């Protein structure tokens, strides 16, 4: 078999070349890091059970997980190694609460190490490692492995992987990714309850195979076609794994042939929120592409918050603070919420049933919304969210 080459010359990456042959490791790197890379390569050969591999690693400042992932891919592609065992990796990832705060889901390209390093530090509520749109077909294989090793390395608060549609690369994505134990899988172009159920069944099989409790992995369907929007209700209610449903405006406008305006998206957005609420899950809005336009992003965030959305996609860490700002309760809202809660608690202590503030009835939904407002406010002031 001929030589296989994986990786790029970009900063933070490395190029690994493997061919079947005598076990030789050649490291092309600065003297300071040469022994460390050699050790890492030896360890990876061992973990991939590759005995007959001639290996060359050319370093451009790649972190360990990147080198290991590149080497694993090259070993497997050249037919001399298996998937890395989990012995050295693994973050003991506890499931997160179904209704946790998810104001931002930050998209991170699955193929670019430079954009992955430290991505957990910017205060996003969810990190979404992407194997779909940001990864060209030629890099699907190496990106899956890279993302799994990243999952083994970093303790994210909540981390999702956006796989490809199951009809294309999605099935292989799942097999590769699940040992990394992401909190959830993001399913693009969800169009029916069957799409979700199918994914859920595959997850159950893979969870069993990987020693993970069945049902642990959450699902976030992304609705981004006309069909998906019309079927939003059944998609949201399709499976208990679904805790949040996201909207993708770019694909949606292309699908229906509309321009992206507030008005053209209003029906789809409102439909999504109603579907999510009826299923008791969260709704998350689409991304905003113009990274430098903070004002427009803030406006759009405030708009979707008014529509009932719980969160929004971000494609750059710079957008996080803006979106969190857009979802932050205003001082007047916080003040009102405090009054509602204190009046309600007082009434409860005195055994009074019906209560009112300024002539307006305080019923359970009002009280719950007030509590959520205070929770949000507290969360916003605790973590500065950069």
């Amino acid at each position, binding site marked *: 078999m001929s030589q296989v080459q994986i990786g790029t010359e970009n900063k933070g990456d490395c190029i690994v070349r493997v061919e079947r042959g005598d076990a030789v490791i050649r490291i092309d790197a600065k003297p300071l890091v040469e022994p*460390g890379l050699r050790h890492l390569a030896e360890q990876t050969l061992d973990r991939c059970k590759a005995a007959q591999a001639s290996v060359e690693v050319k370093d451009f400042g790649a972190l*360990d997980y990147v080198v290991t992932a590149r080497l694993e891919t090259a070993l497997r592609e050249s037919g001399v190694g298996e998937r890395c065992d989990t012995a050295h990796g693994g973050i003991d990832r506890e499931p997160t609460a179904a209704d946790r705060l998810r104001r931002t889901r930050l998209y991170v390209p699955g193929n670019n190490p430079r954009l992955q390093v*430290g991505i957990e530090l910017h205060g996003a509520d969810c990190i979404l490692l992407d194997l779909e749109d940001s990864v060209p077909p030629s890099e699907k294989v190496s990106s899956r492995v890279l993302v799994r090793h990243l999952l083994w390395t970093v303790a994210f608060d909540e981390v999702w992987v956006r796989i490809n549609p199951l009809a294309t690369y999605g099935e292989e994505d799942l097999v590769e990714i699940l040992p990394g134990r992401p909190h959830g899988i993001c399913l693009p172009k969800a169009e029916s309850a069957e799409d979700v159920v199918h994914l859920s069944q595959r997850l159950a099989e893979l969870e069993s195979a990987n020693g993970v409790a069945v049902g642990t992995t959450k699902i976030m369907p992304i609705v981004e076609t006309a069909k998906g929007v019309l079927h939003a209700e059944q998609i949201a209610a399709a499976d208990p794994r679904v805790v949040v449903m996201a909207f993708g405006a770019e694909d949606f406008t292309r699908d229906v042939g509309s321009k992206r305006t507030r008005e053209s998206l209003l029906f789809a957005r409102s439909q999504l929120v109603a579907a999510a609420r009826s299923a008791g899950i969260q709704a998350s809005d689409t991304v905003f592409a113009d990274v430098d336009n903070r004002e427009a992003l803030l406006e759009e965030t405030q708009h979707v918050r008014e529509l009932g959305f719980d969160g929004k996609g971000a494609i750059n860490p710079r957008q996080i603070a803006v979106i969190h700002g857009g979802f932050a309760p205003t001082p007047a809202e916080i003040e009102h919420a405090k009054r509602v809660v204190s009046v309600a608690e007082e009434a409860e202590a005195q055994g009074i049933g019906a209560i009112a503030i300024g002539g307006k009835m305080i019923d359970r939904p009002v009280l719950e919304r007030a509590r959520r407002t205070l929770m949000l406010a507290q969360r916003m002031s605790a*973590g500065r969210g950069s």
Partner: protein
Amino acid sequence: MRNALGREVPETRAGKPTRPFMGPFASTPEGTKAARRQKTIGRSEDKLLPSLDAAIEATGLSDGMTISFHHSFRDGDRLVNAVLDSCARKGIKDLRLAPTALFPVHAPVVEHIRNGVVSRIEGSMNGPVGAFVSQGGKLREPAVLRSHGGRWRAIEAGDIDIDVAFIAAPQADRYGNACGICGKTPCGPISFSTVDAQYAGKTVVVTNDLAPYPVHPFEIQQGWTDYVVAVDEIGDPGSIASGTLRLTKSPTRLHIARLAADAVIASGMLKDGFSFQGGAGGISLAATKYVGDAMKEAGIVGDFAMGGATTLLVDMLREGLVRAILDGQAFDLDAIASLRDDPAHLIMDPGQYANYDSRGCSTYMLDVAFLGATEVDLAFNVNVNTHSDGQLLHGIGGHQDVAAGAQVTMITIPTLRGRLPVIVDEVTTVTTPGDVVDVIVTERGVAVNPARDDLRERFTTAGLPVKTLEEIKAEADRFIQPPRKPVFSDEIVALIEWRDGTVIDAVRRVEGWQ
């Protein structure tokens, strides 16, 4: 002998005794300043000479002498190479080079060291000359690196005895007044040279724009100047002239800058009368911008900002966010125009700015400073001179002076550069002692010097991610195999002086790897 930081430093250099570092503010100067010989130039003498060659001959420059230069053209300077080429042609040997700083453009100095034209260096070496000197055995005596203020002090004290100062001047008159912010190719202030001009045996002003008397503002004065030479080219202001300010887009760097600005806000120092030093590095520029935004939002007016000035500082001055800019170097055209046009944008020489042996430094008036590092260690010591592989690749700049002066000194650094950690157990070289470093800001959190409990409390209250340096280091180290370390020989290639002239560390030749 070991100095107060426990670093092994030599007792002598080139046969003369050295003084070990005793602490950032421990030494007291004695005696009087050095001075140049008296001289008078009468009414009839013409200082203008036809060529650089003629000027070198007129100064009597000969074997073993010391020559000096400023670095205001940075990597576009042409004068150092031109003078050394001329010296080489004349067969002059064994020169001591005492520039404020050398850049990659000065790579030909390596050849002049090889062929014996240059045998000693006292000055900053950024890039290839430093790398060459690091190999050992190249110079007749160890190089000496000094801070901006340290160099000024050393010249005044007579530690550096300059025979001939060559001063690249974007505009000069034939009587020897010269200016850096005027002329066809302004490079910003040339006031780093004012001490050279006053203390050198001979002072030569070299200009590409000879203008009618009097050229002004006269940073270099006629009373200091022996000769004037007009040439076609002294330097390419390159990045200074064409550079438009580009803020970094790196999410990690922006994140560090955001944390640094948040730390300034949390420190309680951001109020009317605020002062800060903002460098031209990516993180520092972004942090300056964030601090400026916060000042605008809160209606705060600062007393002054300290440069190297950029468009960013100039805008703050124009918007009334600061009342003045104190500026030693200009990094873009806006800064140069502002120096010419705005009376509140002041040229500041290193004596005013940073001299330890003086009756006051502007850095001592600073509230906050943002500085960088190649390495930081668990004792908060900072290295800006060498890399982890022991190569001497950078000068000190104003690092020591500003760190010692500012009430809150923040080092803004990423935790990793490629596969190499920036936070280490012990820095390869100490440039600035942990005593004068208050806060380390990284993308993984903010570490506060244990001596600054007041700051730690404020940061914690404000919700900043306060961690120990050990914690931040451990987090970063999880991503890499530990690098090996260089093994150093006994041969000393350079001494790092603290700003008071004591030796804070020695750079040794790398012999191999652990």
